[in-house]
């Protein structure tokens, strides 16, 4: 059922809204299925018995880390439904410190997966204007994603750099693994509205995490994007530099 606005513009039909909502539900269900399935198997492993105390301890640790990762997605989903200009608290932030905090937060997860993560700290401190909670969630989304695609021998790197003559600060997460297939990336661009270069060789993904990250970024006048590499990808978020940063 299409409606007409005052200016004669066709508004979204109920069918459009239903389809968009349904796509989100399906994407959320798919993204949560993987960690939930793993949690079940880990729990069954303990239930089956016959494990040494060390094996029980390792399995329990994996349950904790997997559930924390799944919970990050659910809290992001909840947060994204309440998102709006009024909810973003944009303040000057020490971006270097934030990146180090994020790396420290995911370090146990990376370590348990035999992966490494580093922060390439710039010489001067980087101050940007952003909502601390939302920017942290965006970065966590990127590093969670990078964990899946990175290789054990090369650490995932978080970098901080100035762009556009210091007007923008870019926080980037570089992984070293296969890239996203072009077709998938085109679909992500259409459904999510994220402007990125096509990437190759990544498995089917709902793109829900990027969709949420994009919404968080838009709320605080930031922008997310991605760069394709032959040996991986970089996901980044550009935030406005704080005035004091521009004067440096």
């Amino acid at each position, binding site marked *: 059922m299409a409606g007409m606005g005052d200016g004669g513009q066709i508004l979204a039909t109920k069918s459009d809204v239903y389809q968009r909502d349904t796509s989100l539900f399906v994407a959320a269900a798919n993204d949560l299925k*993987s960690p939930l*399935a*793993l949690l079940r*198997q880990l729990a069954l*492993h303990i239930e089956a018995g016959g494990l040494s105390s060390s094996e029980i301890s390792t399995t329990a640790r994996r349950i904790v880390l997997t559930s924390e990762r799944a919970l990050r997605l659910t809290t992001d989903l909840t947060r994204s439904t309440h998102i709006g200009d009024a909810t973003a608290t944009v303040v000057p932030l020490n971006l270097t410190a934030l990146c180090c905090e994020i790396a420290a937060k995911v370090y146990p997860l990376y370590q348990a*997966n035999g992966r490494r993560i580093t922060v390439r700290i710039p010489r001067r401190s980087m101050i940007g204007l952003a909502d601390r909670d939302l920017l942290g969630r965006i970065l966590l989304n990127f590093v969670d994603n990078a964990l*899946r695609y990175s290789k054990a021998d090369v650490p995932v790197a978080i970098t901080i750099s100035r762009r556009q003559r210091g007007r923008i600060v870019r926080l980037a997460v570089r992984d070293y693994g296969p890239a996203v297939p072009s077709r998938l990336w085109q679909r992500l661009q259409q459904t999510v509205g994220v402007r990125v270069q096509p990437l190759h*060789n*990544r*498995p089917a993904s709902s793109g829900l995490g990027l969709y949420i990250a994009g919404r968080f970024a838009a709320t605080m006048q930031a922008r997310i994007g991605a760069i394709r590499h032959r040996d991986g990808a970089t996901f980044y978020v550009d935030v406005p530099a704080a005035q004091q940063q521009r004067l440096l």
Partner: protein
Amino acid sequence: MIPSRVLVIDDDAWFADLLIYRLRAAGLIAAYAPDALEGMRQIDTDPPAVIVLDMFMPGVNGLVLLHELQSYSDLHDIPVIICSNSVDTLTPDDLYPYGVIAIFDKATVRLADIVLHIQRTLPTSNDNFDDTKVRSETT
């Protein structure tokens, strides 16, 4: 009799760990490959008796590996068990021509069922005995 070797190809290392634990507990030899390319390398080096394959992995996906297996006369008979989170999108009719003997949903499967399926698939001790070598040595 040498235990049969099962190759688990899955990018989810923790899930693979659990399955390999169960396979070894059942007396089987289990090897692991985190992606399809490494899987193919191991299959070339030492063809397994059975492959347990995830479909959606970084880089080359499971379907490409199935295609690749079919193109080699010495590998196309290796039975493959699919174990994936995305089985809804997989149709058995499409996969069975690729040597797929079973499809399991990671969300609902009990690993003991996969082990049981593998044990039923494996050749019996007599089948496993390669008498061609004995014949060539005695002639």
